[in-house]
């Protein structure tokens, strides 16, 4: 057995996962698109910016339910259909405490722990634990069990930073996420990278 897993009680690891999920929850919004679609969104590092999946917000506007239950309306500012990303702008500044800490997705290694937070199957802020399954790039390949409604949520590293936006389930226990590096390129207005959102 490994040194850490031997030296700490499994209970401490369990507590750490729960704490990670709790601490990140204020950054997560429930997103309802204008045509009945629903998913999750992440309050990004700018005051009025929320990132979600393109397919979650097919129309020009969306309604967000923030942590604590407050509802705000948002407009789709930009979208990248091939990356399945959309940037939403809300009508008011969001609290500083709700803004996600953005991590370095390039620093992820195969085997690193990741935690997805989303709103799968109507559950609010449900965490799913998994690992990075293949070398990090524009698209993160994950060994994790995600469900519809995880789309557009947050993928956290073990330090609680957002490293990706969960995108889709590709098999039993397999899922893809768009890395924060790719999200940042999208936000800078770079041309869409030649990324294929598929496992192989």
């Amino acid at each position: 057995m490994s040194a850490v897993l031997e030296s700490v009680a499994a209970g401490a690891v369990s507590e750490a996962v729960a704490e990670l999920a709790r601490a990140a929850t204020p950054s997560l919004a429930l997103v309802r698109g204008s045509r009945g679609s629903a998913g999750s969104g992440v309050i990004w590092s700018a005051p009025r910016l929320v990132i979600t999946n393109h397919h979650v917000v097919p129309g020009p506007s969306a309604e967000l339910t923030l942590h604590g239950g407050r509802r705000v309306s948002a407009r789709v500012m930009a979208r990248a259909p091939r990356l399945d990303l959309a940037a939403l702008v809300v009508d008011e500044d969001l609290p500083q405490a709700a803004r996600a800490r953005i991590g370095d997705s390039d620093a992820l290694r195969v085997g690193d722990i990741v935690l997805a937070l989303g709103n799968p199957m109507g559950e609010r802020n449900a965490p799913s634990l998994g690992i990075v399954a293949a070398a990090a790039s524009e698209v993160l390949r994950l060994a994790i069990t995600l469900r519809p409604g995880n789309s557009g949520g947050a993928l956290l590293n073990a330090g609680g930073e957002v490293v990706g936006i969960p995108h889709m389930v590709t098999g039993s226990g397999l899922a893809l996420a768009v890395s924060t590096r790719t999200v940042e390129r999208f936000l800078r207005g770079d041309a869409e990278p030649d990324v294929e959102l598929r496992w192989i």
Partner: protein
Amino acid sequence: MTSPPASGSGVLASVSDELAGAVERAGRSVVAVHGRRRFPASGLAWRPDLVITASHVLERDTDLSIGLPDGQQVEARLVGRDGGADLAVLRIANPSLQPAEVAGDEPRPGHLVLAVGRPGTPQPIASFGAISSAGGAWRTALGGVLDGYLRADVALLPGLSGGAIVDVGGRLLALLSAHLAGGDPVGIPTRVLEPLVERLLSGGSVRRAYLGISTQPVELQAALRARLGLEQRSGLMLLAIESGAPADRGGLLLGDILLAIGERAVDDGEALQMALGPQAVDTPTQVRIIRAGTLLEVTLTPAARPNA
């Protein structure tokens, strides 16, 4: 977002580091196996010049190659394969592999494990889970009989077959196959692998015996058992006999009820498979049957199973 307490986040970051380290260490002994039309599968460095993998990932016996952890691709020769155990052994010319470090302890259900493969990717791929069960002798979905297995709830990433199930220290526990149990991840534990690999090294492919029959278990009625003085409660009724196969040549007929092969009672399909191990190939064997309410002994010579 509020920062999590340093201690909590520190524990998780350390665990994350250790898992990534375990994948990296295990990955030094995990190679790519090129032997099918689709993307490559995985294999394990067993000795400096030997790679073991899952037999089902080799669609062909020649034109095989190994992708080393450093990215080099080298030719490999098939030493032998055992379809029933879903195991194949390959040899490369230059003994440059770093054999997997084998875990000392047998894992128990609940122990955390990683599945590590390298389907032609520069870096290994991995999934994570727990041992769900560890057990003894069983019959695989491919017709083999193995002395043990490990089941783990690891995700079956494409190309992971032939890779390793390792402990959280990166040490080898089992060879992973997606086919041995019909689509669930199952591993052949190292203690079971060793004799299987030795057998393939010494004798080429492991053969399984076959008779060329399809059977159905039937309960023997009390009156029949009483009349024949039988303890055995069930047997195998012959529903089909392949023309020219050992059962046909030995004179078995449709409707015969198979009771025993040699000393071994065959009261279900599993017992039949156990009776048809490699030792039975080409060995004349007394077979006990019921035909038309009468006990008969017939001598059959099981052949090697085609395409085993």
